[in-house]
Structures are given as structure tokens and as C-alpha cells.
């Protein structure tokens, strides 16, 4: 009996380790590539571990002009874009779109609860907006912003992302506002508090952690989105991080693979950290509106 249990738990452990290997190896490889010397990236035999760790791939990405890998000049350096403006665009678009979405979504979720508005019809409509494929959004939006000459403008991306983020924020917040006992807002209104007071002085403070979670998840959606960003932008004036990575990695650039990997690491870090921060709300965030 004991032997059997031991055999089973050993098997479990082995399967677990295989899964860890499968999920972790690509990440290890990305980080390793970003720290390798160019000669180690392309050289044969393959370098699985390296002691020659270098941060020069990152330096190159941020436009460092001094010596890299011990060489002053190397082919193609002048073609390589600098990542900073793309990161700034991503942050700008993500922050504004998520903040506006949070405000509008919070208003709508509160209004729906307070005035018993809409019902399941509104709910289903919002849910259906959430599954809109980006390509369907991209086609008409491109024509509209083109006729307004707002292509390559950060604000056009912010507006388009509202279409995805407002329904999401509303759906998630409706569920949480419903869980707040009605007695609290009733008590406040008897004390002479109007609906604005109830929203800003009672609901908002109570929902603070969820608001943060909604903000972060919306921000991540904006940060990760490639298709619409690629269509509505043309240069570093508005292009976001995924567009940068796609352009960087699509063309074979020889020694720049290390920098492409470094870009991937830099672009993943803020997402990873904020996800860890809101892990508690991740399941309800991912399934917003489908599990009650």
C-alpha cells in the first residue's frame, strides 16, 4: 500500500516537473538570449548556459551610443529603433483608456444597480461586445480615423480601446456592486446623501481594490493589443510596444536577436508585476460576466 502511494506521488512529481519545464523553458530562453553576446546567440554549438552575461542588448535598445560588446561599430546599428517612445505611447494610451473606461464603466454599473436599469438584455449586449473580434473593429475605425486625419494619433487608439474596456469594466463592476448590501446606500440616502454622494463617498471607497484590478486588467488589454494598434498607427509617434516587437522581430536582423529578446523582457515586466499584484481577482477578471 505504502509503496503504491510512493510510486503515485513520484509519478505526480515527475509530471509536475515536466510541466514546469514546458512552461518555464521558453521564458528562460528569452531571458538567456537577451543576456547573451551576439556570438553566443548565432554560434554553434548552442549555448545552453552562459557565464558571459552582458547587458549590452538592453543598452542598444535604449539608444546607447558607446562601445557595445567591445566593438565601436557594427553593421546595422543605425537601423535599430529605440524602444523608449514606444513604451511611452503604450503607457499613455493604456493609462488614459483604462481611466476613462473605469469612470464610465463604474458610472454605468452603479446606475444599472441603483435604478434597476436594463436588466439581462443590457447584460447580454455588453457581453456580446466583449467578444467582438479586433479585425471587425479595425476595418471601420481605420476608415473613420482616416477621414478625420487622425491616423497615427494616440487619442484614436484610446477611443477605440474604450469600446473593449468599457463593457468589460461594467460587467465586472456590476457583479461586485451587487454584492454591496443595499442597506448601506439606503442608510446614506436617508442621511441626506444624494446619488453622487453615494457613488463617490460610499461605493468607490468600498470597491477600491476591485477598481485597481479593473484598471490593471484594462491596462493590460491595451498594452497587449497588436492588430488595431498596427492598423491605426504608422510611426513612433503613436505605435505601441507590440507593434515595435512585431516590426523588430519580423525582419531578420542578424545580431539584433539579443535586443529583440531584451525588448520582450522589458515589455513583459510591467504586465507580469501588475498581474502578480491582482492575482486574487484574476479569475473573476478573466471570466467577467460569464460566471455569476
Amino acid at each position, binding site marked *: 500500500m505504502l509503496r503504491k502511494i510512493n510510486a503515485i506521488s513520484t509519478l505526480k512529481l515527475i509530471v509536475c516537473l515536466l510541466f514546469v519545464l514546458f512552461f518555464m*523553458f521558453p521564458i528562460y530562453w528569452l531571458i538567456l538570449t537577451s543576456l547573451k553576446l551576439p556570438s553566443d546567440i548565432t554560434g554553434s554549438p548552442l549555448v545552453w548556459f552562459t557565464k558571459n552575461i552582458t547587458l549590452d542588448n538592453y543598452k542598444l535598445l535604449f539608444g546607447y551610443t558607446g562601445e557595445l560588446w567591445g566593438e565601436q561599430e557594427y553593421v546595422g546599428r543605425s537601423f535599430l529603433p529605440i524602444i523608449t517612445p514606444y513604451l511611452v505611447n503604450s503607457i499613455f494610451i493604456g493609462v488614459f483608456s483604462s481611466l476613462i473606461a473605469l469612470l464610465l464603466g463604474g458610472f454605468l454599473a452603479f446606475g444599472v444597480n441603483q435604478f434597476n436599469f436594463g436588466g439581462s438584455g443590457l447584460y447580454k449586449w455588453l457581453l456580446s461586445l466583449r467578444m467582438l473580434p479586433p479585425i471587425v473593429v479595425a476595418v471601420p475605425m481605420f476608415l473613420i480615423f482616416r477621414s478625420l486625419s487622425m491616423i497615427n494619433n494616440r487619442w484614436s487608439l484610446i477611443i477605440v480601446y474604450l469600446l473593449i474596456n468599457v463593457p468589460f469594466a461594467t460587467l465586472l463592476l456590476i457583479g461586485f456592486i451587487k454584492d454591496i448590501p443595499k442597506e448601506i446606500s439606503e442608510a446614506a440616502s436617508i442621511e441626506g446623501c444624494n446619488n453622487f454622494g453615494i457613488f463617490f463617498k460610499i461605493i468607490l471607497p468600498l470597491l477600491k481594490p476591485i477598481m485597481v484590478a479593473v484598471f490593471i486588467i484594462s491596462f493590460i488589454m491595451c498594452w497587449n493589443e497588436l492588430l488595431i494598434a498596427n492598423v491605426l498607427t504608422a510611426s513612433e509617434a503613436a505605435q505601441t510596444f507590440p507593434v515595435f516587437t512585431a516590426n523588430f522581430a519580423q525582419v531578420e536582423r542578424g545580431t539584433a536577436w539579443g535586443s529583440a529578446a531584451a525588448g520582450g523582457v522589458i515589455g513583459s515586466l510591467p504586465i507580469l508585476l501588475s498581474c502578480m499584484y491582482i492575482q486574487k481577482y484574476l479569475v473573476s477578471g478573466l471570466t467577467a460576466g460569464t460566471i455569476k
Partner: protein
Amino acid sequence: MSGLKRNYSKNNYSKNINIAKTVFIGIPLLSIILLIIYPTYFFIKIMLSRFDLSFMREPVFIGLTNFINIFSDIYFWNSVFNTFIIVVFAVLIEFALGLCLALLLGKIFFGGRIIKSLFIIPMMLPPIVAGLNFKLIFDTFGPINEFLKIFGIDPINWLGNPFWARTSVIIADVWQWTPFIFIILLAGLQSIPEELNEAAKVDGASGFNLFRFITWPLLVPSATVALAIRAIDAVKIFDVPFLLTAGGPGGATEVLSLYIYRATFRFGTMGYGAAMASIMLIGLSLLAVLIIKIINLSNRMGWD
């Protein structure tokens, strides 16, 4: 006292309510509707027109010609086929692996929490970074081929061979989204009361029977939700094939979103692209309706 009086005099009260309704419901709802109505009008107008960006300034109405053309467009049906294959295989494998993982890690054991946090990292990465990861790994001189060499397997041309390119896209998708199914199933699993398992064990159930008659029926609602969201999202797949294979080789990984993207924004045939996008939208809606039906059915079959 005057404050109370002001709030409760009837006129002011209903005026307040109206202002509140305008702000809390009117403004957000109106902004969403505005964001939808104008683009929808454009969308319908364009998909019934011929509009080549390369040489036309204004769309020309041509009725349903775009839709008729779609039926004889082999590239379109090729992309539908590719999407179908990738979605079916990716989602099924993700579900199988996610279920395995959830059952393995369902009971908290030493180090389980850390392993769980490690497992959900891929899901948190931007999809474009997942594409970049696998571009590095599936390189002809990359680590996978080097690893296979140990077993005497010849290097595989992962991204240059139609079959292997499709497999690479599926593997990348499985890598990124298995964690999604895993954490939803894990949440479902951990909400099953421990007493039920104990009671079943007392009654003599063990191993497979415990799973078949206790765990699985209780897991069905979370499983359908996880599958539903994943299936709908998988149909929209774009980032990974865009970066990894760019639709190649020979259109083997050209998924629906990628083909419509190319037709619309690379070749500039806006009208035709819009028509294809509308067909994709209809297909997705049908899929969603089907899934909602299945969820309702499974909820009825589930444990009450």
C-alpha cells in the same frame, strides 16, 4: 433642518434622480452607442461597396458582389480551414493539459503555491512576446532541434514546413493559454466541498470513480465557461501567426484574422475585407449562441 427639507421636497428629489440617471446611465451608455453606431454604419456601407484604397477616393455601391466573391475565394476558405484546425487542436490540448494540471495541483501541497504562480506566467505575457519566444525556440539551429539531435532525430524545419508550422502555432497557443484553463478549473475544483469527497470515499469510491461521479459533474460549469471563453478567443488568433510565420509557408498558417488583415490593409480592398469580417462576426456569434446553449444545458445537468 432646512437641508433635510430641501432633499425631501418632491420636485427637487425627482430632479436629482433625473440628473443622476443622466450622469450614471446616459453618459456611459451614449458613449458606447456612439462608438458603435457610426462605425457600424460605415461598416455596412463599405461591405456593400467596392473600395480599393490604391486607386479609389470614394466607395462605389455594388450590392452583394463582395459576398458572392467570397464563396469562390479559395484563400478565404483556406484561412477558415486553418483557423478551424488550429482552434480545435489547440483548445482540446489546452483543456486536457489544464484539467491534468488542476487535478494534480488541486490539493495544496508543499510548494504548490509557488508552482501555481509559475504556471500562470505564460498567460500574463503579451501574446506578441509568446510569438517572439517561439520564434527563438523553433529556429532551425535553435534549442528544440538541438535537443532532438540527442535522440538522433534530424533537424526539423519548424517554420518552413506547412505541417510543422501549423504545429508550432498550436504549441505556442497551448503554451500560452493552458494556464488560463488551469486557473479557472482550479478555482472550480477548490470550491467543491471536501466533505463530499470524504463521504464518497467512505462509501468506497476511489480514484477514477471519485473523479467520474463526484469531481467531474461538479466541475462541468467551470469547464464549459473556460472552454467557451477560450474557444471564442482562439478564433480571433492573430499575434502569434503574425510574428511567428506571417501566415506562411504557402498559407499554411494564414488564419482568418490574418487573411482579412492582409486583404484589407495590405492590398487595400476595404470593401471585400469588410464583407469577410462580417462573415467572421456572424460565425463567431453563432458559435457564442451555441456555447451559451451548451452552458445552460450543462447548468441544468450540474449539481443543484
